[in-house]
């Protein structure tokens, strides 16, 4: 059985409770580097976005440091996320059951997952977050490079820079909203954060939220 959504390192360990390896050490380190960068980028970016939040630049040691460090964190995030993308893209490919899952979002949100189709390693919501993050990060790095006057100021006209900075601001707002969804989902679905810290989930967690993935793993 060649399941598209089994990732290297996914493994079931019998016991009580059953434990399932969900994220490898490499994937977790990769994730948390990206997460740290995203939070630092949001804080530094917001400080330059709205005067009411300018005080946040103090966390970086002032406006000047915030201005030069923000794009460099962006570069780190871009390559870090590229690593996550290479790890996760295949299991995040859109499948037919994802449409059904999304159509029953009401049942998902009211915690009636028994009414929705069995889900592989990632559900449609997680896939949406994955692809939105991917598109937005590409948008942000491109518009960010155009706005990086220190190194790239000479390559574009002022009009292009204006469009780039507006696109950058809009994409930032959307990615922060996507991030809120991502973090909230991880908090709401208990056991998810543990998956990204220790790498493991319980069999019950996998049964409840990603039964197709668990069945594939067991039958591997």
């Amino acid at each position: 059985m060649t399941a598209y959504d089994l990732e290297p390192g996914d493994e079931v360990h019998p016991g009580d409770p059953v434990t399932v390896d969900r994220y490898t050490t490499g994937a977790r380190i990769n994730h948390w580097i990206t997460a740290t960068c995203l939070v630092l980028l949001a804080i530094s970016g917001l400080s330059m976005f709205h005067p009411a939040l300018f005080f946040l630049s103090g966390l970086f040691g002032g406006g000047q440091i915030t201005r030069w460090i923000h794009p460099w964190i962006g570069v780190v995030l871009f390559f870090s996320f590229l690593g996550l993308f290479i790890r996760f893209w295949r299991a995040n490919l859109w499948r037919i059951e994802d449409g059904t899952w999304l159509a029953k979002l009401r049942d998902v949100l009211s915690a009636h997952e028994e009414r929705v189709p069995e889900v592989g390693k990632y559900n449609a919501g997680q896939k949406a977050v994955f692809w939105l993050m991917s598109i937005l990060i590409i948008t942000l790095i491109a518009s960010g490079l155009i706005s990086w006057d220190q190194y790239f100021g000479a390559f574009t006209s002022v009009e292009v820079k204006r469009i780039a900075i507006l696109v950058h601001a809009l994409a930032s707002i959307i990615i922060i909203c996507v991030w809120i969804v991502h973090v909230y989902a991880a908090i709401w679905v208990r056991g998810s954060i543990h998956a990204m810290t220790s790498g493991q989930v319980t069999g019950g967690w996998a049964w409840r939220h990603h039964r197709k993935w668990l069945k594939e793993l067991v039958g591997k």
Partner: protein
Amino acid sequence: MRRTFEFELPNPPTQNVNTDLGTMDLVRRSASTVPPPARQLTEVAKLIDISKCIGCKACEAACIEWNDTRPKIGTNIGVYDNPPDLTPDMFTVMRFSEWVNPKTENLEWLIRKDGCMHCAEPGCLEACPAPGAIVQYSNGIVDFVHENCIGCGYCIKGCPFNIPRISAVDHTAYKCTLCSDRVAVGQGPACAKACPTHAIIFGTKEEMTRHAEERIKDLKSRGFENAGLYDPPGVGGTHVMYVLQHADLPEIYAGLPSNPRISPIVDIWKGVTKYAGFIAMGAFATIGVAHHLLTGPNKVSREDEENAKHLVEGERT
């Protein structure tokens, strides 16, 4: 007796020099608010009469000298413009345009002294994210405060005239100050002081507008029927104004915009985006909290664990 020019600038005082322009005179301060000033200074303006300019660049030299910017010696790029553009060390440059007047077939040499226009509604200040890095005084001067500047270059995006430049040395933005430090002690800008033909004069905005009218009348009487004052209303008027021989065609003066205004993109970025952004982020966070309060945590049940156990053992045994 030598006839003195009406707007001859006084020589500098040597004693009892009191600065009469300070933070109490601010009407706008970037990324922050200021209390309304107790007094309103008379609006000042620099009037640049292009028909009188001989392109000697005394204004450039005076600007460098007064502001002590010491730009590096440049290279000749084949035209009179030298340096070819504004830099963090050159707050003003003369832009030379050769234009053939289609009516007279005369070649006209149009020399425009470029630099900050000191807009009444400054785009740089609107775009600036750093509190107090750009200020506007009640006399109309728009000034950059370098210790507050973070070097982001947003002012460049806000400016309809493409004036500010970021220094690679201290990473802050530079532009013409209208010699605010000289004006503060009752002087005029260094360029106006140095101009040998009075093509650059300085005074109250009202005086400058009145003087410009006389100049325009004179130019019209000499065949420049479209002579006029450049004080563009799109930015609320400016505190650097031009007398143009051909006010109907500002673009022929090295691309002087005919209807400058703050770009609508900048307005969207600094206006609706800021509020919509906060609303969107706030809404997502609020929905999250509300959802959690309503549904409670999504916990794995004992039954789920049992089911998983049966599945695993069923397969393995």
